[in-house]
């Protein structure tokens, strides 16, 4: 706390100094976020009757439009929130960078957030909800003009308060070959290279123990994006050179494999109609700053971004049995061997016009999503560890989902959302537990605008499930007293699960927002399970307690 206060004091002094030295082109700003929970009861013993909080202060300074500086101080006081990696501790400086940009050239030293293409070969970003901050500590240089963008990145990956053992090196280039506003036609191609150098030898042991595979693992990627009028198409392919595979915390010299990724996207976007289809195949694409991170709970030093391509839902019961992408090689036992995933996702959007029979006075929006993901088909051997896959073979199904959402506005003051989804979840293959689950979820979400800036939202949900934990119901009420102050209550009940005493989870709370600040407080019992944002998930144990959060930008 003392370090935290000292650091902030320095920044406050800097602000005062800057303001007094004020030049119109300089700018000091930032954000502050704090989430604290008093854990009354907890699945994890050491959090029982404990207070924990995660705090982030981010400060940026722009000088003369060419220079910018960024610093972030994080404080986990007295301890981090549960479900976050052990490496998040105490108060420390987590991000520090200096940037310079002029005439198309750019240089960054310090913490680097970068993405090549869609992130399939490299993405470094921060997600506080998930406890992810895999920024590269090193340097970046960039050059860009209207037709060409070239980026070079090199350094170590951030892992909590430490950095990865392996070094990461990346080069990305993007060329705009066609760019016509008249015909709305563009063609962009990109080529990338990402290398991770990690020497796993143990020279202190005699005779020295080493691994036979190369210390340097390479990813070569090519991508193309094409669009003409209402049509668009994108394809990306990655080739990964041979790499040792971590299983049960061990890397064996005789289980060394290449990897690959293929993704194809095609779509049509017309007025009132949108269609999108994505195919993706990933084989042995886990890629970390440290090889042994594979299979670890938090996967902190992930270099590439391989999210689940399924629809991200926002309702409590739709977030039970969520699919996590399976890009890795995992051989936990002879009856469960995986080398990656293959599958597709399709989206359809349609706007039923106002004044038609189904559109009504205000129109109706419809969206349909289908997705299906399978293991790679092929020959698998547990002893010795080996596999050989078929390129377009679909193996054991992991997950599939079909969902239909209707948004309907009935009057100026009343609207609702209907959502129905049908889901298959192979718990054995995805979560490496037991069972297969078929379930359906129905949600009706109603919004009523009342007088004097007040509004009410009522939401009812039901999950139909003959397998696993059987049926659930849930409902939620949210009342907005005005545009600033809201209160809510929601509950979900696993009413057919007599084995576990019909578990019930609930939460009630209030929030106050004013300009760019938000304060909220809540109390309740939260279901344990996967918390997912952007297709990446983190396991959060069940708890009961009092939470607060403060969030401001300045």
């Amino acid at each position, binding site marked *: *706390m003392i370090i935290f206060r000292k650091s902030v004091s320095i920044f406050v002094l800097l602000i005062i100094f800057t303001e007094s030295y004020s030049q119109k082109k300089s700018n000091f700003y930032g954000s*502050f976020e*704090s989430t604290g929970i008093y854990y009354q009861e907890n699945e994890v013993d050491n959090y029982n009757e404990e*207070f924990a909080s995660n705090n982030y202060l981010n400060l940026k300074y722009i000088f003369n439009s060419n220079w910018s500086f960024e610093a972030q101080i994080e404080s986990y006081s007295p301890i981090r929130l549960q479900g976050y990696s052990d490496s998040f501790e105490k108060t420390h400086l987590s991000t520090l960078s200096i940037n310079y940009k002029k005439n198309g050239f750019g240089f960054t030293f310090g913490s680097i957030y970068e993405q090549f293409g869609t992130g399939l070969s490299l993405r470094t970003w921060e997600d506080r909800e998930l406890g992810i901050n895999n920024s590269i500590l090193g340097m970046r240089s960039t050059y860009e003009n209207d037709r060409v963008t070239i980026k070079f990145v090199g350094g170590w990956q951030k892992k909590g308060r430490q950095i990865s053992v392996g070094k990461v090196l990346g080069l990305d280039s993007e060329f705009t070959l066609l760019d016509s506003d008249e015909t709305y036609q563009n063609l962009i191609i990109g080529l990338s290279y990402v290398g991770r150098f990690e020497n796993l030898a143990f020279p202190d042991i005699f005779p020295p123990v080493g691994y036979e595979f190369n210390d340097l693992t390479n990813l070569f990627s090519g991508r193309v994006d094409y669009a003409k009028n209402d049509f668009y198409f994108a394809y990306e392919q990655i080739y990964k050179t041979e790499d040792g595979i971590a299983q049960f915390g061990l890397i064996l010299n005789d289980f060394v494999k290449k990897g690959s990724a293929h993704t194809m996207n095609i779509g049509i976007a017309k007025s*009132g109609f949108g269609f999108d289809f994505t195919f993706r195949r990933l084989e042995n694409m886990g890629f970390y700053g440290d090889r042994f991170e594979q299979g670890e709970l938090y996967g902190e030093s992930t270099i590439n971004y391989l999210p689940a391509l399924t629809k991200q839902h926002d309702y409590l019961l739709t977030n039970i049995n969520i699919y996590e992408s399976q890009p890795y090689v995992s051989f936990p036992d002879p009856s469960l061997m995986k080398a990656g995933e293959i599958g597709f996702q399709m989206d359809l959007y349609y706007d039923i016009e106002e004044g038609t029979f189904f559109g009504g006075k205000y129109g109706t929006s419809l969206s349909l999503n289908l997705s299906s993901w399978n293991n790679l088909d092929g020959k698998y051997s547990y002893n010795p560890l080996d596999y050989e896959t078929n390129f377009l073979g679909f193996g054991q199904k992991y997950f599939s989902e079909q969902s239909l959402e209707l948004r309907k506005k009935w009057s100026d003051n009343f609207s609702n959302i209907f959502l129905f989804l049908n889901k298959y979840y192979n718990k054995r293959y995805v979560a490496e537990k037991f069972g297969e689950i078929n379930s359906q979820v129905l949600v009706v*979400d109603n919004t009523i605008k009342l007088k004097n800036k007040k509004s009410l939202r009522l939401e009812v949900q039901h999950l139909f499930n003959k397998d696993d934990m059987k049926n659930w119901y849930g409902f939620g009420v949210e009342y907005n007293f005005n545009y600033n102050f809201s209160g809510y209550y929601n509950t979900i009940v696993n009413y057919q699960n007599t084995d576990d005493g019909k578990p019930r989870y609930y939460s009630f709370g209030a929030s106050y927002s004013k*300009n*760019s*600040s938000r304060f909220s407080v809540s109390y309740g019992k939260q279901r344990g399970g996967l918390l997912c944002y952007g297709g990446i998930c983190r396991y959060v144990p069940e708890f009961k307690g009092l939470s607060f959060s403060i*969030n401001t930008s300045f």
Partner: protein
Amino acid sequence: MLMLKNILAFSVIIVFSLQINAQENVPNVDLRTIGGKSLKSIDILNNEGFSIISFWATWCIPCINELDAINDLYDSWNEKYNIKVVAVSTDDARSKKRVRPMVSGKNWAFDVYVDTNQEFKRSLNVSGIPHTIVVYGSKIIHRRIGYTPGEEKDLLNIISKYNQ
């Protein structure tokens, strides 16, 4: 509980002492159109008038509620004031491909851009969405977190007051 008090007190001091140094201008960083074309954040704004920047994502229900509500009023807003609405999608690689068909399917009348690795979002210190920023030229005149039904009407009041 002493720690809780400390953190709360400390947070409140930070929030209020730093509000006086509010970010004044929209930073100039890279964005892309939904067609994939690269451009600068300054170029998406209305140089001579008001812009409303709305950070959203295809999976964020209140964000879509806000943009649907703005879309219903967009024509009448433009009759009164010269307002440009720019919806900046923060969808990453997982859901980015859903942006263009969804925008077409919804027939939104305003411009939509993508901020795939959230550089623009980060440069404006936006942590949660929906987050809406009202801008005159490139000067930030108002920002807010969250959306409650009807709140879009308040944005027009802010613009109207500033215009006086």
